[in-house]
C-alpha cells in the first residue's frame, strides 16, 4: 500500500492504495466519483478523461500513485459552485452534442483542455484535438459544433445567433477578437541533466 494525497474537484483525499490501482478506479470505487467512466482497456476511447494538474489525461491509463500530490478535476467538478454549467457543458447541451452520454464526461474534459491551449480552433483542429475520445452516437458533428460554440463563449464573444439547434442550422462564424496565444512554456533549463562528464 502506498499513501497518496490527491485533490479531486476541490476536496483533498488521503488514502492508502495498492500500487496497481488505476486512477479511475480510485476515483470511482474509493472516492465515489462515478461521473468518470471506463470505456476501454487500451487508452483509446478517452471516456475516462480528467484534468490532472491542469492537463487532460486518461485516468484509466494513470496509476493512482502517479497522481499523488496532484489536483484533479472531473466532470463532477466542472460546473460552478452555484451549479452554473461550464461553457463547454452548456454548449454540449445546447448543440445536442450527446446522445447516450457515456463518452460525454471525457469528451467535455478533452474539449476543455483543447480550448485552454487553443482558444480559437478551426473545425479541423477541433476534430484532431478530440481524436483521443471515441463517440459512437453522434458522428461527432454536433460535438464539433459545440466545441466551436464553447470556444466562442470562453473567448467572451457574442455568438452571432442563439446557440439552440432550432432548425439544425449552424450559427454564423462568430466574430471574435483574435486570441493572443500565450508564450509557450519552456521547461527549466537547469532541470536538464548533464549526464556525461
Amino acid at each position, binding site marked *: 500500500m502506498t499513501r497518496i494525497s490527491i485533490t479531486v474537484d476541490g476536496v483533498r483525499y488521503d488514502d492508502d492504495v495498492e*500500487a496497481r490501482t488505476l486512477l479511475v478506479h480510485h476515483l470511482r470505487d474509493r472516492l465515489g466519483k462515478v461521473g468518470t467512466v471506463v470505456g476501454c*482497456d487500451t*487508452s483509446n476511447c478517452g471516456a475516462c478523461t480528467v484534468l490532472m494538474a491542469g492537463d487532460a489525461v486518461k485516468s484509466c*491509463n494513470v496509476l493512482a500513485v502517479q497522481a499523488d500530490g496532484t489536483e484533479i478535476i472531473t466532470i463532477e467538478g466542472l460546473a460552478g459552485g452555484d451549479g452554473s454549467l461550464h461553457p463547454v457543458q452548456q454548449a454540449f447541451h445546447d448543440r445536442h452534442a450527446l446522445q447516450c452520454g457515456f463518452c460525454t464526461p471525457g469528451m467535455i474534459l478533452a474539449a476543455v483542455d*483543447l480550448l485552454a491551449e487553443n482558444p480559437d480552433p478551426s473545425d479541423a483542429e477541433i476534430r484532431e484535438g478530440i481524436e483521443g475520445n471515441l463517440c459512437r452516437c453522434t458522428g461527432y458533428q454536433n460535438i464539433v459544433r459545440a466545441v466551436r460554440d464553447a470556444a466562442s463563449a470562453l473567448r467572451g464573444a457574442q455568438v452571432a445567433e442563439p446557440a439552440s439547434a432550432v432548425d439544425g442550422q449552424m450559427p454564423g462564424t462568430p466574430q471574435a477578437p483574435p486570441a493572443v496565444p500565450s508564450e509557450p512554456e519552456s521547461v527549466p*533549463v537547469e532541470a536538464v541533466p548533464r*549526464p556525461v562528464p
Partner: protein
Amino acid sequence: MIPAAFEYTKPSTVDEAVRALAEGGEDARVLAGGQSLIPMLRLRMAAPTLLVDLGGLGELRGVRDDGDALVIGAMTRYADLLRDPLVRDHAPLLAQATATVADRQVRHLGTIGGSLAEADPAGDLPSVAVALDVSFEVVGPGGWRTISAADFFVDFLTTALGDGEMLGALRVPKQDGWGTHYEKFSRVAQAWSIVGVAVAVRRENGTIAEARVGLTSMGNRPLRARAVEEALAGAPATAEAVSSAAARAAEGADPPTDVWASAEYRSHLATVLTRRAVVAAGGIHAS
C-alpha cells in the same frame, strides 16, 4: 481489466532509481509516462514484480541547449517537447513527429524516453531518432554511457540497455540548416503508423547535399533507408531525382505483415511516403 499486483517505488534521484532497478532484478521495470506500459499491465501482457516510477526525477525532465545539440531528459513529456521553443527551433522533425503520437491526453503523460526505450518499431519517435543519429545517454550500475541510435535499437521491443540500465537523456543534433518532414500514414487518426518516414535534407545550391531517412514500421526496429540516402546525396533537387531515389525506400527493409497491412503494401507505401517526405523536407517543386 486490472493489472496484476506489483511492488512500487518512486525514487527521487537517478542513483536511487538505478539502485532500485538493480535490486528489483530482471522483473523490475521502469515506469516513465506509462502510456504504453499501463495498457500492457491491464491486459496482463506484462506482469513486472516491481515498477520503478521515474516521475519524481526532475533532473531527467527538460530541454537544454548544448551547442550543436539539444539535450533532452528522458522524462520530458511529449507535451513539453511540443511547447518547447528550443525543440521548435532546432529539432522541428522531432516536434512534428511528436505531434502525431496518439492523442493529446497521451501526449500529456507519455515521455520521449519511454517511447524510445520501448523500442516499438511502429512508434514514431524511434525512426526520428535513427534519422537524426540521436545519442542515447544511459545510466546503470556502471554509471553513464552513450549508445548511438544505430546501436540502441536491437530488435522488436528490444534495446541495447543492459541489466539495470535506464535511459537518462537524448542528445539530439540540431537541424539548423536542414529541412525536415515526418510523413505518417495510419488507418485512423489515433492508430499506430502503418508506415512513417522521417526525413532531414540539407540542400546546397541546386542539389541535395545530404539526406537522412528513418522508417517507422518497416522492420523489427526503426530503420535508416540507406539506399535512398545514398541516391539523394549530391542528386539534383528535382522531383525526378527524388522520385527515383525514393523508389529504393524499402531496400533492405523487412516490413511485417499484420492486421494493419501486408509487407508488400508497406514496401510500396515506403516509396510513396519517402518521396513525399523528401519533397516536403527539401522544399522541392514539381518540375
